[in-house]
């Protein structure tokens, strides 16, 4: 079961999110994360969907997504040619004795501390999944009170842009 990152351009309309997410649950496709937001064109939203499955399932997912009228374009992002990012907010349990060492790790990871209280620190960090996982693993030693993650968002490197001119009907 491979992990694939799909970038999907959709009409920015109500109902689209439900159609896309409904399709995944209905057809039993595994979805790791889905993030969505407006693009440079306010009429178009871009979804980044992380799915798991073999090549045949991936092919079906792409074809079924393509059938949705509101889906404009789908591209599978090559990890080598793309930038993957996720934002996580992590509330770590701290006390006087541990706070300094947590802050040290935060700065090694180039993360930010966005809130401090008597017995916790809230860290904001962006990075690819591995970086976030690594940080979370280290924080486990101190105790994690809460984690919120946005799910992956991604863009291709270089001049390439994902434009919305035409849906490709590849087979």
């Amino acid at each position, binding site marked *: 079961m491979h992990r694939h990152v799909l970038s999907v351009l959709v009409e920015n309309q109500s109902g689209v999110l439900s159609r896309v997410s409904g399709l995944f649950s209905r057809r039993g496709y595994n979805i790791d994360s889905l993030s969505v937001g407006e693009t440079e064109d306010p009429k178009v939203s871009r979804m980044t969907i992380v799915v798991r499955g073999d090549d045949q399932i991936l092919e079906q997912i792409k074809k079924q997504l393509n059938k949705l*009228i509101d889906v404009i374009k789908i591209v599978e992002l090559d990890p080598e040619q793309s930038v993957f990012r996720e934002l996580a907010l992590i509330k770590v349990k701290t006390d006087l004795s541990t706070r300094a060492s947590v802050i040290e790790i935060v700065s090694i990871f180039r993360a930010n501390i966005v809130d401090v209280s008597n017995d916790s620190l809230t860290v904001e960090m962006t990075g690819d999944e591995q970086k976030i996982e690594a940080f979370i693993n280290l924080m486990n030693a101190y105790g994690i009170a809460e984690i919120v993650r946005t799910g992956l968002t991604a863009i291709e490197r270089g001049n390439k842009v994902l434009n919305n001119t035409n849906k490709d009907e590849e087979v």
Partner: protein
Amino acid sequence: MNALKAAEAIVRCLLAENVDTVFGYPGSYILSVYEALRVLKLRHVLVRQEQAAAHSASGYARVSGKVGVCIATSGPGATNLITGIATAYMDSIPLVVITGQVNSSLIGRDVFQEVDITGATESFTKHSYLVKDATQLPRIMKEAFHIASTGRPGPVLIDIPGDVQEAEIEFKYPQDVDIRGYKPSIKGHMGQIKRAVKAIEDSRQPILIAGGGVISANAQQELIRFIEKTRIPVVHTLMGKGAVPTENPYNLGMIGTHGFKQANEAMNKADLLIFIGARIADRAWGGVSKKSLDDVKIIHIDIDPAEIGKNLGTHIPLVGDAKLILSEMTQRINDLNIEDWVSEVQELKKSLNESKTKVRKTKAVDPEYTIRLLSQKLNDEAVLVADVGQNQLWAARNFEDRAGRNFLTSGGLGTMGYALPAASGAKFAAPHRQVAAVVGDGGFQMSMYELGTISSNNLGIIILLFNNSRLGMVRELQQRRYGIISNVMLDKNPDFIKLCEAYGIPGIRVSNNSEIEAALDKAIESKGPFLIECKVDSDESTL
């Protein structure tokens, strides 16, 4: 530009799409549209339950080749449509479904007769709209007809709040559609067509499998020409019935769990399977006992790329319109070297024809014999609508295909109660064609309310009711699976003749084979609606 009420604009859009009949049932949140229908004199057929509106629109679409239109009010009206929409979706039938909705400001508050119908039907509509801005209605209507009828056809639902129907808009029906996310590919990829032709030329035992897509693409003639040029045998799925005339010497009939032995055998022997507009679902594949697909090549022609590779691995996918692809292939293909296969097919065809002359041993009516007789008596253009159950398979196996768009049934969903309303839709679409509905005692009771529609419009439909006092197909399954006598019987059936009489529909009860012919003659002569109830032995088997 002229300003008018959105409800009137909706009806003007329908007229612009050459819609001549709308099937529906009114209620408070669709009344503005009903008033516009009345004023603009668009024919509205009042069914007796909304499910029938969708089935009738489907029957209408399948016989006319046009988009079928049905309308209903919000809430219960909309939910009653659901089974009909799903039935159409599974069989790729083009429908535009219009539902009323509560006023925009009330949506989401669970007010009287509010349901989220776009949400409820999301997984079995091709697309749907909840209209919030009346000015968008002409564009939405245009898009809906376009989406329903192009690519792989299917139902499109438009949900319109009451206040939106009442709004004043500047009306202009758009000429063109441009939906950036919807550009179905029509022309087949030339490289793939060449590869397919080459694979066919290299094969020794090729076979064509025609599905419903051949019919929705209007590709019957192109398929027949391809068969005549290449002499490749053809079999069909339940939905593909009618794609090729029964008497065509290369047609080996229906495949699948309830298909013909000869058709399944040809599938088993073939070294190249050419699927056209067939999704190869479990029931169609069921009669085929191919042990492995290792030494078989598969070509799959379909307008829907997502069908290719979904159920079976495919070597040569060919996305596009079957009509265009078939005529391109016919032009390109060279003579085939399949003499041995052709003579093998001739033998299979002979044995198939012989199998169709057998009469069952029964004191009651032989349903298969009845369908064959009906088929002989009806003229070439006749349409047969089959319900679901044993009656459906008796009909599918024995009704002779001569004209196209001549056999309708709920193939994908297997919806009991389909036949009566679909038959009335068929009759509205083609008043000059003879229409017969074959139905079981179970299925008849699922939509017998449509006797009202049939009678009040004096629709000349021959209703052939096979009364085995059982949910026959279920009875058979229970016996096979659990070895029991069914615990769900239809022993206390009503007197169907009297029931029809109450609606002013004449009928005859037939209790053995010798009485069938006279009854059929009488029914055909009558021109109006007519019931023939055939007493079928409760233990009669499907095959």
